[in-house]
Every structure is written in structure tokens, then in C-alpha cells.
């Protein structure tokens, strides 16, 4: 069997085991409702950070409008379940697709920009989405869409997260994924080599946006409401922080960043006055000591587990 596929299977088995253990602890009451909530929040944040990593880390486009796509997913899925009374599975799909379509439409014109300009454009777009929602009375306007049932369970969120992680991992290893990496390394060179850069940039952007929509749908169906204040640019920055902290361009990093920051936030909830200060200091120290993020662009891989094995066990891919 292909070694990559073998590693994937092992990893999925590991995930299944992790799932069984966590779910068991939840049933057994060893993980209380508070930590259950935070574990679900971690899973949602992982979906967000991994999908943003696809845009920012792999394709090298600096997008900071992720919360906007999350809002689209949250609201459209809530309309499906609350206003139309249709099943949750459909809501998840519609939320994903809606955010994806919007990502495509927005991506086409804005991805002509690069660097700082793209960042500003996406920041603005995220805010535009939020302000639009704020003014649509059908979805509750400024007071938010209330009365959403809690349909997100740990099983849903966990397996969707695993799906997204594997999807993006496989995407990166596919031909379009390689094109994205080439664009990140040098857009002009990639263009010269015959890569349709616009196509692949929009593709990565659309995929990232649609997964953000999925995360939004899971989010609104766990926290009972979709509220414009939940999707401000601060949320986008939170997600960006997770990606950058973990290491831009490393999925392992994005996951670690999401886990770490959600835990820090939950831990510090006893000290609300200090939370932001400690949070910021953690970030500053980390950025000073490891400006490339926790993982740099390194991925956790099979070789890393082989203790005392090959000398350079890292998947060499970096810049």
C-alpha cells in the first residue's frame, strides 16, 4: 500500500480512538459541560484556522475576512433550520455552499490585489457582510437571529473537522494544491510556467471560504444564535492569530494554534481583567522567540514519530 495512504489510515484510526475516548469521557461525566463546550469550540476553531491556512499559508494570499464567511454560513444555515424548518444536514451543506459562492464572487475581483491591498479589501468585505446582515430585518438585524436549536453535537463537529483537515491535506498534495504552493513561492514564476494563477487563487479562496461557512453553521447551531457581534473583524484576527501562532503554512501549526489559544482563553476566564493582557503577552513572547510560529511551515508527519530514525525527520517543504 502507498505509504501516504497507510499513514492516512493510521491517522484516521487514531482520530477514531481519540473520538471514542473523548466521547466516552463526556458520557461518563468526566468531561463536564464546560470543557465539552470548549472542546467543541476547539474543533470549530480548527476548521476555521485550517481553512484560513489554505488561503494564507498555502496559497500565500493575505485574507483577513474569514469572520464574514463564517457569518454567511451561520446565517444561511440558521435560516434553513429556523425559518424553513428543514433538516440540519441540509443546513450545513447550504451554509457551506453559500459561503463558497460568496467567496467565489468576492475572490474573482479581489484576488487581483496582493499583499496589503488584499488584506484591506478582505477586511472591508468581512465588515460589509456583517453590516449587511445588521440591516436585514428578516434575520433579526442588530438583535441577531435567535431561537436556533442546539443541533451541533460533538460527533458532528469532530467528524466534520476530520473531514476538513483531510480534505485540505489532500488538496495540498494534489496538482491544484501544488499550483497553490507554487503561487505562494513566487507568483510571477508560477505564471510564467503556465499556471493559471487566478484560477488557483480563486479555487483556494472559495474552498477556504466555504469551510469557514461550515464552521459558522456549526457555531450558530451550538451557541443558539447568530449575532452580528460574533462576526466582527476581531474574530477574523483571532483566527489569523491561531494560524500565525502555529506557523503560517503548516496545518499542524494551525491546529495547534487553534487548540492552544482556545484553551488559554478558557483557562483565563477566571481572570477576566487579566485575560487580554496575558493573552497578548503570550503572543508577543512567542513572536519574539519564534517569529515563524510554533511549527514554522513544518508538518507533523510519520517520520517525526520515528524516534532516533532519520536525521532530518521533517517533511522538507518550507521556504
Amino acid at each position, binding site marked *: 500500500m502507498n505509504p501516504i495512504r497507510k499513514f492516512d489510515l493510521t491517522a484516521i484510526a487514531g482520530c477514531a480512538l481519540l473520538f471514542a475516548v473523548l466521547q466516552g469521557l463526556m458520557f461518563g461525566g468526566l*468531561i463536564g459541560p464546560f470543557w465539552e463546550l470548549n472542546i467543541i469550540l476547539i474543533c470549530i476553531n480548527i476548521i476555521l484556522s485550517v481553512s484560513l491556512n489554505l488561503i494564507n499559508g498555502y496559497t500565500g494570499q493575505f485574507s483577513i475576512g474569514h469572520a464574514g464567511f463564517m457569518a454567511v454560513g451561520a446565517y444561511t444555515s440558521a435560516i434553513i433550520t429556523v425559518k424553513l424548518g428543514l433538516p440540519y444536514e441540509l443546513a450545513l451543506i447550504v451554509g457551506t455552499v453559500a459561503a463558497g459562492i460568496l467567496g467565489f464572487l468576492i475572490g474573482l475581483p479581489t484576488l487581483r490585489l496582493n499583499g496589503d491591498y488584499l488584506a484591506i479589501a478582505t477586511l472591508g468585505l468581512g465588515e460589509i457582510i456583517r453590516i449587511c446582515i445588521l440591516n436585514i430585518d428578516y434575520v433579526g438585524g442588530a*438583535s441577531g437571529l435567535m431561537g436556533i436549536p442546539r443541533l451541533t453535537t460533538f460527533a458532528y463537529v469532530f467528524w466534520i473537522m476530520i473531514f476538513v483537515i483531510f480534505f485540505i491535506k489532500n488538496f495540498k498534495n494534489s496538482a491544484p494544491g501544488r499550483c497553490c504552493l507554487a503561487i505562494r513561492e513566487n507568483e510571477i514564476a508560477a505564471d510564467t510556467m503556465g499556471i493559471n494563477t487566478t484560477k488557483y487563487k480563486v479555487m483556494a479562496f472559495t474552498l477556504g471560504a466555504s469551510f469557514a461557512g461550515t464552521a459558522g453553521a456549526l457555531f450558530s447551531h451550538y451557541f*443558539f444564535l447568530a449575532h452580528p*457581534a460574533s462576526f466582527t473583524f476581531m474574530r477574523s484576527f483571532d483566527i489569523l492569530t491561531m494560524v500565525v501562532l502555529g506557523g503560517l503554512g503548516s496545518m499542524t501549526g494551525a491546529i495547534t494554534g487553534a487548540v492552544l489559544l482556545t*484553551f488559554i482563553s478558557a483557562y483565563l476566564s477566571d481572570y477576566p481583567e487579566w485575560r487580554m493582557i496575558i493573552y497578548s503577552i503570550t503572543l508577543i513572547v512567542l513572536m519574539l522567540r*519564534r517569529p515563524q510560529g510554533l511549527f514554522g511551515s513544518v508538518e507533523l508527519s510519520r517520520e517525526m514519530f520515528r524516534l532516533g530514525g532519520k536525521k532530518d525527520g521533517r517533511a522538507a517543504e518550507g521556504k
Partner: protein
Amino acid sequence: MKRGTKLLSLLTAGMLFAALSTGCGGSDSGASDKTVKVGGLLEMTGGSASFGISSKNGIDLAFKDINAKGGVLGGKQLALVVADTKSEASEATNGMQKLISQDKVVAVIGPNQSSAVIAASAINNGAKVPGITPMGTNPDITVNPADGKTRAYNFRACFIDPFQGTVMASFAYDDLAVRKAAVLIDNTSDYSKGLAKFFTENFTKKGGSVVVEEAFLQKDTDFKSTLTKIKVANPDFIYIPGYYQEVGLIIKQARELGIDVPIAGGDGWDSAKLPEIAGKAALNDTYFSSLYSSDDASDINKKFVEEYQKAYNSKPDVFAALAYDSALLVAKAIEDAKSAEPAKIAEAMSKISGFKGVSGDVVFDEQHNPIKSAVIIEYVDGVQTFKTKVNP
């Protein structure tokens, strides 16, 4: 570099493990022998941090008073456990979950933002822990719009917006002794429509009549034609439940047209900008209803304002006052229930009677909204002056 990575991963893993293990571990009950834990789910950071910080000051002061007098249930001290909502609804849900399942509080005070209260209400209702919001005014907080039933474990210390209309009608009819009212509604705001509806209802019930009803839109600047129509109808009182921006212009133009009858409105008037827009002289003989005034002359309020100033060096705002009342309500409910069991506290809270707070006396109706007095504030030469307290 490689060692560094591994070390960091190890460190991370260690931290996560530690987090999990503490998460699963210890759980001391909210009501031990010596203390009763009450949660404060407040906006400590974020855009509405001023609400939460004022509220926390109010609760701290109330608990200090109660504990100094010997606490509750024969000597148990009240302890406040604060969780931050970051001024955001999903964080409020998170905080509510933490207070209830980790800290095992017996009741929760807060949050103040309506959306946050509604989001978190699913958690505290599921866990059967009473929650009281000092300033959440949305009607859906205590009544679930899906089935029209009262949420058994949600209460509020403030009255809901439309109630101000009822109160103002009583004040106009009884205190100002007017009989013919004109109502001027901001058609873009539910707040305004609600107040106007309840005003009209109560005013006509009392025996007055609404002789003319006109509407305007937010951002309008010229009200002369509307006001001329009102002048022709010759009312002896005008009710304008709007926001200060338009209200200021309306009052200014009304006085210019020679309409010199009393004008009144709701707490949308409460802004330092109003005297600037309308002009100090034009504002004489105008009134608005509000939840609380620190100038309220009741003994309990005087004592509260004095203590608050001593402790925090500023006058208490409405958030501090209502949080103070919420804390007293929780304490009284615990005493009435003779128990620190959350479900019993909720039951006692719904039946509370004889409660005197700094913002007025409180009993709860069947929808867990307080039936309480409102304060009427008068503008005297552009300065807000406490006029009277009105019972519905």
C-alpha cells in the same frame, strides 16, 4: 531548531493534558458550609465593558453590605464569581456554562446585553439555575418567542421598554392633570412604537383621549408641518417616545411655533446632547421616564449613592443601581427559599414580595418582568432634575 520544535510540541501537549485533567477534576459545591457562590456573568471586556464594570461594582457593594450584616441563611457569606462575556453572545454562553458546571453557582446575575442573555438562557434553563439580568430589556429574555411560555429561570430587574409608556400615561394624567394628548411616533423604531402603544392604552383607560397621532422618521430635520397639524388639534400634552436627536429638533421647533404645553418621552431622551440641540429654554416643562436616577430621594437610594461614591469615587449609573438591586433580589430569594438550591431560589424569586431596592419596589408578574415604579426626570434650564417616582 528541531529540538526546539519538539520541546515546544511537548510543552504544548503537556499544557493540554494539564488543562484536561483540571477540567475533569475538582468540583466543590456552590453552597458550602460557609459561603454561597453567586455568578456574575458580566461584560468585563469588549465594547460594552462599561456596563459590566458598573454592574460588578454594584454587586460587590450589595454583597459587602449583606455579608457585613451576617450574610444569608444564618451566617453564610455570599461570594461573587465573575465570568467575562467579552461583550459577545457566544462567549456569554461559554461563561454561563463555566459558572454553572465548574463553579457551581446557585444563581447568576447578568449579562446586560439582551442578545447575550437570550443566548445564555438555554444553558441556565437547562441546568435549572436562576439568572437575573440587571438591564436586558428585550421581551424575549423572559418569554420564549417559540412557544410563548415564560422561561422559568430567567428574570430581569429592569422593566421592559413599553412599560415606560404605561408609566408616562399615569404621570401625565395624575400628576400633570392633562386630558388631551398628542402622540408623535418615530416610525422607524420598534422602541418608539411600543412606548406609544402602551401610552395610548393606559391614557385612554384612565379617561384621557389622544386627539392626534402623527409619525416621523429618523434623520428627519423639519417637523414644522407635522407640528402645525398638532397645534390645530390643540392638545394639552405631547408624547414623543423617540431618540434625542429628532426629539431635540422637534421640541425646538414646537416651542418656536408657540406650542407651550408639556412634552414628554422615554429614556431615549437621556443624553447630554438634548439640551444642546433643543436649547435650554425650550426644554423647560419637558419630562422623560427612566429606570433610575441617582437623585432619587428614597432612604435606601441615598445610602446606596453615598456608599457607592465612597467606594468608587463616582456617582452610580443605572447599570450599577440595577445590578445592586439584582444582587439584593438574589439574596432575598435565597432567604425566602431558606435554601441555596438553585431551583428553590428561582421559585422564591418568582414569588418575591415586599422587596425594596434602590430603583424601586419589585414584584414579578407571570412573565417574570418586574412591576416596579419608574422615575420621571424633568429638564429645568437644561439640567436633568429628579421629578418624582411613579407607580404604574
